[in-house]
């Protein structure tokens, strides 16, 4: 139980996908103009994450990693399919995103309209593929580690994007030099926010 909580808190705060590893920055910077749309995107990303990362974990565990196929027959133990992992992971993610897109379009049309092009772009959101690649890289060994990890990553990303959006809403009214307006100041704000988030890094769980 304690381990599950640790993994969750670590993924959400200390190793925040957006602010510690800068994953999912494209949609992060483009959508975070208003708190409402960021919230919607954050929820969509979290949902896709908790669905795809465990699924990719199972695929990796039972099919792709070196020696994974021994459950079929012992003679397959030398087969290493890990070179296919990028392709399989992204295929799982793309499929999951299309399903989410269909569900959102049917059930929440107003959210669908405000997210616009960014819903299909979740498929190329680095945070989601990144979570799957970290899951593989860090060699998590069971679903009880992967599920809190993906939930924590999603919620951490949501928190980061919503807080950036809140800052940007306020910044609209400030007097910023013309060339710095828009993306320029967004980058610098995110940088400062990330430096603030680095203070979590020292925490030992």
């Amino acid at each position, binding site marked *: 139980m304690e381990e599950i909580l640790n993994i969750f808190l670590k993924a959400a705060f200390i190793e925040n996908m957006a602010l510690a590893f800068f994953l999912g920055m494209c949609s992060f910077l483009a959508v975070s103009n208003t708190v409402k749309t960021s919230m919607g995107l954050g929820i969509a990303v979290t949902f896709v994450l908790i669905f795809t990362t465990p699924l990719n974990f199972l695929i990796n565990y039972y099919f792709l990693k070196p020696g994974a196929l021994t459950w079929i027959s012992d003679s397959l133990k030398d087969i290493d399919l890990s*070179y*296919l992992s990028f*392709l399989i992971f992204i295929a799982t993610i793309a499929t999951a995103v299309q399903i989410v897109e269909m569900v959102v379009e049917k059930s929440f049309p107003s959210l669908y309209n405000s997210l616009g092009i960014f819903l299909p772009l979740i498929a190329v959101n680095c945070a989601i593929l990144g979570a799957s690649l*970290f899951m593989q*890289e*860090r*060699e998590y060994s069971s679903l009880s580690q992967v599920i809190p990890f993906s939930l924590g990553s999603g919620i951490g990303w949501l928190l980061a994007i919503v807080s950036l959006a809140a800052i940007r809403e306020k910044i609209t009214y400030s007097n910023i030099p013309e060339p710095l307006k828009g993306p320029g100041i967004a980058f610098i704000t995110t940088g400062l926010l990330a430096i603030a988030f680095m203070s979590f*890094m*020292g925490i*030992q769980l």
Partner: protein
Amino acid sequence: MNVQSNKYIYTYSIILISIVAVVLTLVSVALKPFQEENRRIEKMLSILYSINVQTKKETVANDYKRYIVNSFVVDSKGEIVKNKVAFEINVEEENKKPFNKRMLPVYVAEVNNEKKYIIALYGKGLWGPIWGFLSLNNDFNTVYGCYFDHKGETPGLGAEIATFEFQKQFKNKKLFDEQKNFVGIKTVKGGADKNNPHEVDAISGGTITSDCLTKMLFDGIKNYIGFLKKGNNYGK
């Protein structure tokens, strides 16, 4: 032809996937020997690096033969295990086994007519695995040299464990205290006590990786305690 029909979509996907699968398998099979050779060369380079011999890819095979005079495998009690090749032991896999079932590779090098004993380490870093080799003088206590590497630590921060600047601190540090109790070597944030034989400076900005390294050193050397305590029997 109707490009949007279901039948077309299915056929299209199947053809695409088959082409991709064939291409990727060909590439992977064709490049595998190069990648494996790289791994062998890298392992030899790292072992030599831990006894402060720096060499190049082209000359590593010869240098390895010249310096590494012997290698064997021990268990956690320090007994030599027969019929095992040290170079082929996968330390990562061994660390997953219960403590007293682990097979531990030892390489013996000869530098300036003195024997050095090289042990292998493996652990978890911040992003991915970290590993290394530690070479000891023939008192089985004093560090002669070391080598650390990592799979994906943050460049410029945790990744600095792989630099000479960091690794040179380990020379002449000791694993055991004067009462022959195992202490190991710690990375200390904010500067180590220069006179303490069990401390080195941690990497500034790479605290988590440094802590992981401390843990790897402690756990990794603990595996070998049986061997190190018996050490003198092998020295002769």
